[in-house]
């Protein structure tokens, strides 16, 4: 009896977490480079309530409920949306931009909405520096016609009209990008689950090419999220009913002895 109560409670908790995942996906439906999370459920262990009969039946083995196993980051590519900003970059492939954060650590992102900071360095909105082959990429203030090639070379025209190279953007490739740790601001930290980053030039291996004047949209699909939301909400309700019924049964047992 108590087992049924706890089983249903475990499911309510897991479904609540699934709803939270969906809420986070939906709120990031317009976040550049966002990768949706998929709530994955897993059964809990089964308890042998009644031993197996000799070589015949498996006996009575009752499951104990469910838990949210992981929130799997789905790495499907988002749509590439054109923009007018020459510093808007998208990656057509599996790589990540390498961002040097103010504290010196390196973070990784798919969000290529960059700009140039006061010192002419290519930077993210939160002030992290985009790393190239030889550190941050510096574009002089008088540069015009900045062009970022698919292989990551950043070219510009100097005041004298000469075409110069500011650097080559590099990308990081992970064996299991779903294992990266999100740290907010669209940034991810490397983790043991994701493998060590393999630093590559764009276009090599599966890292992918850089597309200038484009941004990668979020890969969240609202229809899919709404369906997930409904499924999780109904499952939550069903399990609340189980708790209610179990409670009623316990009350009947309590009332066996009257007077």
């Amino acid at each position, binding site marked *: 009896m108590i087992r049924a109560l706890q089983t249903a409670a475990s499911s309510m908790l897991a479904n609540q977490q699934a709803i939270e995942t969906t809420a986070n996906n939906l709120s990031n439906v317009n976040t550049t480079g966002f990768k949706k999370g998929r709530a994955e*459920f897993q059964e809990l262990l089964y308890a042998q309530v*009644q031993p197996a009969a000799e070589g015949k039946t498996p006996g009575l083995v009752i499951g104990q*409920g*469910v838990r949210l196993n992981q929130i799997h980051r789905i790495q499907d590519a988002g749509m590439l949306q054109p923009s007018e900003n020459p510093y808007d970059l998208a990656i057509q492939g599996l790589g990540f931009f390498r961002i040097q954060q103010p504290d010196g650590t390196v973070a990784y992102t798919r969000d290529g909405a960059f700009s140039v900071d006061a010192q002419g360095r290519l930077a993210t909105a939160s002030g992290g520096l985009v790393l190239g082959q030889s550190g941050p990429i510096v574009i002089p203030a008088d540069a015009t016609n900045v062009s970022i090639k698919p292989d990551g070379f950043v070219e510009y025209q100097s005041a004298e009209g000469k075409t110069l190279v500011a650097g080559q953007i590099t990308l990081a490739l992970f064996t299991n990008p779903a294992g990266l740790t999100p740290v907010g601001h669209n940034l991810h930290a490397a983790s043991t689950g994701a493998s060590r980053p393999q630093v590559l030039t764009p276009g090599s291996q599966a890292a992918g090419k850089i597309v200038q004047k484009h941004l990668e949209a979020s890969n969240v699909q609202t229809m899919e999220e709404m369906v997930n939301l409904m499924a999780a909400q109904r499952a939550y309700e069903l399990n609340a009913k189980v708790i209610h019924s179990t409670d009623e049964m316990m009350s009947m*047992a309590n009332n066996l002895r009257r007077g």
Partner: protein
Amino acid sequence: MLRGIYTSASGMLVEQKRMDVTANNLANVNTTGFKKETAISGSFQELLVRRVNDKDAAGNPQTASVGTLGLGTFLVQNAARLSAASLKETGNPLDVAITGDGFFTVQTPQGIRYTRQGNFTQDANGTLVTAEGHAVLAGGRPITVRDGSLTISNTGEVRNGDRLLGRLDIATSQALGSLRKEGHGLWTRAGADDAPLLITPAEANGQYQLRVGFLEASNVESVTEMVEMITIMRSYEANQRTLQVQDETLQKAANDIGRVSG
């Protein structure tokens, strides 16, 4: 009389356990590849009731049987229903669903286990693993691809680019024999160490099919389980009432019979 009380109580205990099973089914209504369970109850051996202290016209003792008396019920076992579940399209290249009778083979620290959950990923080493982190076996070995170009086809072939690395090991429940759920989506079988008969999709002859980019939903139907839950509750209630009525009768016997009215 007292025997009847125990019979009613056994009925209540059975319904309570059936509620546990139903609660677990409903808890897993959104679990990938979950197979619902049904509890199977049996009755205690029936007792042959005979006449005692009964004599025929000539005064000889008679022991003719008057029929059988049930002594209640208990749950024998539960069985997983392998009925088909709906497929959910995910488009994810490492999601694989099995339709029909088939199980993926995975390597766990405890040995070989079987699963219906095809939401695979690659771990940090590039090994194809289940959501629990157990290596998925193809040709008896784990599959490892480091550069992110692992593909699985509907025929179970695992490739790195164009290079064939192996075929997913898939066993049917027929070949596995008696299967038992362990939890965490894993199934084990009696004689777990024996190598099962693996059947490739090409040989499966329609016993099962693989669908890549799909996940198998849970086969729990919430309506059926709700009806089951109502049945359990009412049947529990009926047993409870029967028990109470017997209690009242006993009360009469204990308190009222033989009372000197006055």
